[in-house]
């Protein structure tokens, strides 16, 4: 079976103004099957966000290619929804209009836009906040709106770049459950970047570990924990075992990254 998303020999080298080259991503291959939830785990600066941004079409690779449904990706598009770490809701639109943004661009009738948007407002638990502006919402609520905005567009794949990275620990755990619940119900395909090992194991059907910069995939491991996963799976021996294994793998990379840049960047 050909995967929904196929990454072939993708590499990215950044060239600075003085001409010096920094390799961010070494030749990488990755396949994501339909309905899969793949988490990409790695130390900061390992190129995992670069990989995701290239898949989104927001950055161009130095070599290699990305195929979605067998078609080569040349730029950003509505078929790849994205949730960013920073809060990217449009501040001049209400929660509801933010969620309608993609549908409106596509020219969907207003009635249909509202029906879809209201459905997602309910799914992410924002009923009663439809007419609030982003600045009136907490960080967690803004990210829930961002998830709803991406999903309302019905993308083939949902790309998430540390979407809960700026949230406090408790909110983050609730958001993980919320997103996992939506994924279990909607059977979306998700590619999720994080540096949080707990999050990677809890959310992912597969965890891909990346090496220190320049990044490459050093481990691709299935997470054989059955769905639905309640938050209590985080305390099971199976969960702890996988987490311990990945902790070891990531630790090696973090140390490698520190040796390379002693200042800690």
């Amino acid at each position, binding site marked *: 079976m050909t995967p929904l998303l196929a990454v072939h020999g993708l590499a990215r080298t950044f060239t600075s103004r003085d001409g010096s080259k920094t390799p961010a991503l070494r030749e990488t291959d990755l396949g994501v099957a339909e309905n899969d939830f793949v988490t990409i785990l790695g130390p900061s600066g390992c190129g995992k966000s670069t990989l995701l941004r290239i898949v*989104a*079409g*927001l950055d161009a690779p130095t070599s290699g290619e990305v195929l979605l449904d067998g078609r080569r990706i040349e*730029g*950003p*598009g*509505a078929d*790849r*929804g*994205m949730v*960013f770490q*920073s809060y*990217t809701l*449009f*501040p*001049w*639109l209400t929660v509801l209009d933010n969620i309608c*943004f*993609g549908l409106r*661009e*596509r020219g969907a009738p207003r009635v249909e836009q509202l029906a879809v948007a209201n459905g997602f407002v309910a799914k992410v638990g924002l009923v009663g906040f439809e007419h609030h*502006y982003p*600045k*009136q919402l907490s960080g967690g609520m803004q990210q829930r709106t*961002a998830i709803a*905005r*991406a999903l309302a*567009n019905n993308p083939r794949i949902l*790309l998430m770049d540390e979407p809960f990275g700026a949230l406090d620990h408790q909110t983050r755990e609730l958001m993980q459950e919320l997103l996992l619940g939506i994924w279990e119900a909607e059977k979306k395909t998700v590619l999720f970047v994080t540096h949080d090992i707990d999050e990677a194991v809890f959310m992912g059907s597969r965890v891909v570990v990346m090496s220190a910069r320049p990044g490459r995939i050093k481990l691709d491991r299935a997470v054989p924990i059955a769905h639905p996963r309640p938050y209590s799976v985080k305390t099971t021996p199976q969960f702890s075992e996988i987490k311990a294994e990945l902790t070891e793998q990531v630790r090696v990379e973090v140390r490698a990254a520190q040796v390379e840049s002693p200042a800690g960047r």
Partner: protein
Amino acid sequence: MKPLTAVTPGTRLALGIAFFVVFVVGWSIATFGGFVSKTFLADPVSMLRSGWTLLASQGFGWDIGWTVWRVFGGFAIAALLALPLGVAMGAYKPVEAFFEPFVSFARYLPASAFIPLLILWAGIGEAQKLALIFIGSFFQLVLMIAVIVGNTRRDLVEAAYTLGVGDRGLIRRVLLPGAAPEIAEALRMVLGWAWTYVIVAELIGASTGIGHMITDSQALLATDQIIFGIIVIGVIGLISDVLFAWLNRRLYPWAQLGR
């Protein structure tokens, strides 16, 4: 008082009015107390009295109308042309590279120095006044709008692209609505400057307008009339500024949040 601590709206208004009172009291002491000669500075009461005469029997209301029309006419033309150019410069870097150096240069050309040329080209009619206000506001507006649009948050642009907008949709649905409140603020500021230019235009070669009345009064050494004219400009400027600010708040409620 603690730094950056807010005051209640009531206190704010009272303090604002209080300084006007202090100002008028100081002026009264200087003039009624005989510290300044009447030839150089009229007292508040004779200023008001001659102001009334101007309005009631010398058709000064007509002059005010002319001046207001010139300010808004010249400013409207400048704004209508500056908006598309400024937005195009902010959105498209080659357009910016083409126009920006010249506009930056033109911005420093003193508008008032164009008066002799404008009189030569356009006579002393309305076209000359409108042209001066246009020169004074257009280049400033273009640069301000270009900078505002160019400063659009890149992460919002990227988010919009992943939601499927094209380049035109990006300008219409992200760059413009995001920049609108700041553009409105820039318009409000430049409108204030337009008031300066209209008076300069009217001081030289005009047969109507507040500036014309002021030059006439100078010949008569009527400092009371001059001061009345200046205060009328200040009051109209203040009213238009407050109305503009109120309109901006009404149009862009989201921009007021979290300030």
